[in-house]
């Protein structure tokens, strides 16, 4: 099943820590978003394979913007 991770906070993408095709575990750190001058870790909502990434570094994001898609394992 596809799971979409949307941005929980507004801010700027500081780092994208994964690539399409990477396998992640639930609660792995996948991105860092700078919001209110602070670095906020964003964690994977489920275990699986990254199938799409909707943002790149330095993009500005709003709440609910698509960050990435995970194809859930199993």
């Amino acid at each position, binding site marked *: 099943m596809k799971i979409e991770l949307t941005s929980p*906070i507004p801010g700027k993408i500081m780092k994208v820590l994964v690539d399409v095709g990477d396998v992640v575990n639930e609660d792995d750190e996948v991105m860092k978003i700078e919001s209110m001058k602070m670095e906020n870790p*964003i964690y994977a909502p489920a275990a699986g394979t990254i199938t799409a990434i909707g943002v790149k570094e330095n993009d500005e994001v709003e709440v609910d913007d698509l960050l990435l898609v995970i194809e859930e394992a199993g």
Partner: protein
Amino acid sequence: MLEAFANGFSGLLAGFMHLQISNVVMIIVGCVLLYLGIKKDFEPLLLVPIGFGCILVNIPLANLMEPHGFLRTIYDAGIMTELFPLLIFVGIGAMTDFSPVLENPVTFLLGAAGQSGIFLTLALALALGFNELDAVAIGVIGACDGPTAIYVTAKYAPHLLGAVSVAAYSYMSLVPVIQPPIMRALTTEKERTVVMRATRKSVSKTTRLLFPLVITILGGLIAPMGLPLLGTIMLGNLMRESGAVERLTKASANEIANVVTLLLGISIGATMDGKIFLQTQTLIVLALGFIAICLDTACGVLLGKVLYVTSKGKINPLIGAAGISAFPMSARVVMKEGQKYNKKNYLLMHAMGANAAGQIGSVIAAAVMLSVLKGMGII
């Protein structure tokens, strides 16, 4: 000839001869503040000039805080007149986005609860025998807001200025250490894991423009004594939200704030003369300030628990801790603490709401306190 030489030489030693033990202690204190600022990254923008000012004023015979000494000149011009904290406030207003509060008005309550420590500590200081004005200055450390504390103390209890500002700034940087244990002690694991979804209500530009105006006029009418604080922060905010005076907004938030921070810091440091600073009173002030911040946090979290119940479990009580105005530090603490129990919980924006409300709350609390004192005929 030889005698003249000896006299000249003794002139070079005079500073050492006049050095008192209290000066030595304060020079060490100044070095500790520098160490905390430079090496430990505790509010370096403040602790570096404060620490250095403290060292300068404790070197004997230089008389930097005597009439016409350069530190005295800066102090009289900016602190005695309350000008420096007010200029900083314009900058804070220009830097702060109050929309998280407007999106979620319930956070106003948390910003108010986060100020309870001010009043509880005020009562405690009175019980310990401080006079009314000193007690007010001590209580206001609980505002967790440097410029507010300096403004009130400079005006009504200038002899406590060094102690109060050191307490205010050093505890503010210790917020990430002080708050989490209190937050954990007062909440259950279930409460801490409540996930709060981000709000997407957008606040209209008209609302953003009206907000600083309404707060200034209403707040000013209720507590005229606090109008300088409220008026300057809201002026900065109106400039920011209007978008029409970007140069002034930027100057307030950057250049003016930076210049004033330097002058403010060095003149605060200059109040830390060993003879005045090294008294038991200072230690009591530091202790009471610590209590004030703990009480603020506790009251904020407790109100958070009340909201948790009344919202049927939708509000995470942790965000109450952000009701103190250490901005944006305590919002960050809340976000981190929430993620510790549920990694998919991003409380940041909710905590920001409470935090920005706390910023206004501390100013209003100080304003109310001053107006009440005025009403009682004490000032």
